[in-house]
Structures are given as C-alpha cells and as structure tokens.
C-alpha cells in the first residue's frame, strides 16, 4: 500500500475538513447567539436576533452540502482497537449531529411561521411560511427548538471531549484525521491489526 493511498484512507477529505471547521465556528456562534438573545434585554437582543436567522439558513445549506460530501468521500475508519461501545457512540453522535444541524433550522423556520412572524433573512428578504399561523403549534415548536439546541450543545461538548480524548489520551490518528494528517501519523494508523487482548492500551499499534 503506497503512502498516497494510506493518506487518503486515514484522513477526512480536505473539503470535509474545511466544512467541519467552518461549521464548528458557525454552530458554536449560533448556540451562543441563541441562548444569549432570548435572555438579554439589552440592545444586543436586536442584532443577535437579526444574525440568528440568516446564520441558521447558512448552517442548513452547509449541512446539506456536507452530507453530500460525506456520502461521496466516506470518512476514514475508526481505529480497529477502539472498544465497540466507543465506536457505537462515535457513529451515533455523528449522525445525531447531522440530524440536529438539519432539523434545528427547519424547526426554527416552522416555529416562526406558526407564530405568524415575518421570517426575515435581512433587509426585505423574507422566507415564505412553512406552516399556517397557530399559537399552539408555535409553543410546541418553540420548546422543541430550545431542547434540540440544548441537545446540540451537549453533543458538541461530548464531540469536543471525545476528540481531545483521542488526541491527548489515546493519541491515535482520529484527531489528526480532521486536523493536519501527516504521513507519519497515517502510517501508524493505517495498518491496524486487531489484537484480542485484555490489555488494549499497550498492544495494538505496530
């Protein structure tokens, strides 16, 4: 197996990495904008609210593109020596992140529609309502928006903690596969052998 192939198999596609970090910034910004704007009574309320809607639309469109990129360029496999439960948690949390990135903007759009609000993306640019005016539907969607956003924040926290666990504790190739994969790291990751042993920390790599 030559190095070029190994580097392709051991890291995320550069476009996937670009989208990941761009969206990481946008989503963290969005979560802080959202939780801040509903609480504050200062003048920040107005510009945070004005930022929240176009930012949500941008995240939704980027998430769609990213889903396409992920299907076109599958991510590198997780290290073979990862316990099954950890692998499951990794895969489940990734799909949960995709589900939330796509559903939160839609729930927000539907919620504003049901509340009878104009859905302004800035200036006189408005989205059409997704749902008819209905206060009760608004209440359900507004609460869904809140709790899905909390879930997204906790999933992002877990995702970040897990990435640092891979980078600082396990020191496997997972974190570099999304940051700056180097040939050396890939060589250590790529030819993984599964070693059935009760001492996973010391045995598997090379």
């Amino acid at each position: 197996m030559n190095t070029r192939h190994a580097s392709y198999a051991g890291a995320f596609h550069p476009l996937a990495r670009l989208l990941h970090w761009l969206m990481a910034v946008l989503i963290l910004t969005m979560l802080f904008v959202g939780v801040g704007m509903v609480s504050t009574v200062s003048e920040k309320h107005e510009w945070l609210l004005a930022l929240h809607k176009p930012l949500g639309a941008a995240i939704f469109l980027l998430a769609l593109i990213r889903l396409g990129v992920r299907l076109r360029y599958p991510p590198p496999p997780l290290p073979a020596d990862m316990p099954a439960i950890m692998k499951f948690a990794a895969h489940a949390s990734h799909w949960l992140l995709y589900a939330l990135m796509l559903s939160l903007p839609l729930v927000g759009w539907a919620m504003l529609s049901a509340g009878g609000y104009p859905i302004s993306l800035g200036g006189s640019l408005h989205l059409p309502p997704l749902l008819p005016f209905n206060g009760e539907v608004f209440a359900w969607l507004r609460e869904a928006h809140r709790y899905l956003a909390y879930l997204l924040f906790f999933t992002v926290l877990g995702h970040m903690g897990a990435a640092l666990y891979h980078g600082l504790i396990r020191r496997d190739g997972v974190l570099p596969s999304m940051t700056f994969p180097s040939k050396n790291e890939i060589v250590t990751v790529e030819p993984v052998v599964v070693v059935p042993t009760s001492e996973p920390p010391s045995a598997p790599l090379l």
Partner: protein
Amino acid sequence: MTDPSLQPSRQPWRWAVIALAVGVLAAAFAYVGGWLTPQRLSSRQIVNQLQQGGVHPGFRRNHAKGACVAGYFESSGAASAYSKASVFAPGRTPVIGRFALPGGNPYAPDSSVPIRSFALRFTLPHGEQWRTGMNSMPVFPVATPQAFYDQLVATQPDPATGKPDPKRVGAFFAAHPETGPFLAWVKTAKPSASYVTETYEALNAFYFVDAEGKRHAVRWEVTPEANDDAGTGPQAGDPDYLAKDLQQRLAQGPQRWHLRVTLAEPGDPTADATKAWPADRPTIDAGTLVIESEQAQDSGPCRDINYDPTVLPAGIEISDDPLLPARSSAYAVSYLRRTREEAHFPGAPRANPSSEHPQ
C-alpha cells in the same frame, strides 16, 4: 513498542486539559444564557415580576384584558418621502389590532386604570410586517428596562394588604425624577369611557429610512376622529363597559384614526421615552386607520399575535431607545408562556375550567 509517545497516556494533566476545555465552554454557555448571573436583568425576570399578581393561564402577562379588532390602513402617501416602507405608499394595508388595559389582570375593571392601549399589526406584501404597541399617555414613566423592573417591584402588591406599599412606591418615584412628566399627567388623567375616543402614542422613537437611505427620527401616534365621550359613559357597576362601547360603535360603522408621524429635530431625545418632544415639531398625516370589526380576544385573530414593536418592515428601524429591545425580549417570553398554556404543554399552568373562557 519503540516509541513511548504512542502509548495511551495516563498523565493527569492531559485529562485536566480535556475537563478544562469542556468545562470552560459549558460555563461560557451558562453565562451567556444568564444562569450564572441572577442579578443581571433578563427577559424572564421581567415577566416573572409582571405575573406577581397571579398567573392567568393563556393570557398576556401585561395588557391582559382587551379585545381584537380588524380593519385596514389607507395611506395618504404623505409619509413616503420619509420612509420607503410600502405601507406608506398610497393604498390599503390590512390590519389586525388589539385594544387593552395595562396590567396583568384579565378581569380588572375598566375604570381601574386611566390608560388604554392599542396594538396594530400591518401585513405588507412579500412577507413583511409592521407591529406597533401604543398607549394613551404622552410619555412613558421610565427610560430604561432596569427602572421599569424596579418600578414593577416597588409597586407590587403587599401580600398583607393586597395593595402596594406606599413607602416603597414613594421611595421609587423619589429616586426616579424622570418619572415626573408621567406623574404630572397621570394625576389628572381619567379612565375614558371608550377605546375609540383615545389618542394612542408610540412613546418610543424610531427611524424612518427614505429611498435614499437617509434616516429620520420619528415618533407616531393615532388620533381619533370620534371625540365624544358623552352618551356611552361608563355605567356604574359595569366593569366591562369598554368592550360593550366598542361593539356598539362598530355596529354603527367603522371607526377612524389618523396616523400622525412627528419628525424630530437635531437634539431631540430618541433614547428617552420619558421626554416628550417640543409641541412645535412638524407632523405628517400618513393616512387613515379604519377599524371595521371586533372579535373576542380569547378566540379572535389578535390572540396569538405578539405585538413586538421591533417587528418592522424595511424603511422603519428601531432607535437607540433601550426600552425597545427589552420589550421585544420580554414580549417573546410572555408569548411563549401563554401559547404553551393554550397548547396544554406539560408543566404549563392550566386555567381552571370556570375561568378559562371568561368572555
């Protein structure tokens, strides 16, 4: 194993770095959400204070008693030189409005306060809206959200007497000289016999933006064509005379107001709703507001509208008045609470069956 750096680490500092990163992010989120700073005024605190007199499920937390109305705005075109908003081009814009009494009690007698309010939602083409909430008084008592909150706390009914403690009320107004103009007005103000004969003021300043992008500081009001209080005066013992008067008048025909826009001159305060602008400022008659019908507020189309005064079309912008973002933020909390109650959301207070549909 030749390279020790490839071994999984058990060094505690590495775990500490992870815990710190996750902890700092979580703490920052909690800080921005206001959970770590209970002393910082939030929209939740304002609405909690508004419902100190008791929760009336499904009703607005302020201006709880009122009626829905519907009609249209017939623009004269006179304001279109100052604002590019399509509502000011000659023509009609449909309006859903709401008359109300200030206060959180949906059963308050109409004579209990000398102030009435009028909220409007104009539905413009292409998804735009203009929402405004106006009051029948010349100035607002206070200039800032904090002072508004402090006023609510100071005037909250004492549980022992059911009335505000005069000492606390006196101390508040003594500490807030900006309330002077409001207090001078309210001393002589009398509860009107009709919603229809009142002038309603938008109190907060806004900017009109013209087609060239130039901003003009404005305040607006609607002034009634009907100016008779006689004949339909409050009937003794009837706490709901305003709704009956409204029904009677609308049965006879549409009721009209003029939307008058006052233009500020340089130096007129835009960030202080306690200060009226000098009376000689030019005003524009932007058109006629025509109210044709009324509906009960518990089933009418105004029920589920949040009359957030910062919902504006292109061509109108908020000013630097600090009350405006606070109104927007607090109205959103009130709107969510009452729609949750309508939806019988788990955990939301329920109306008891005898009082759920009082009108």
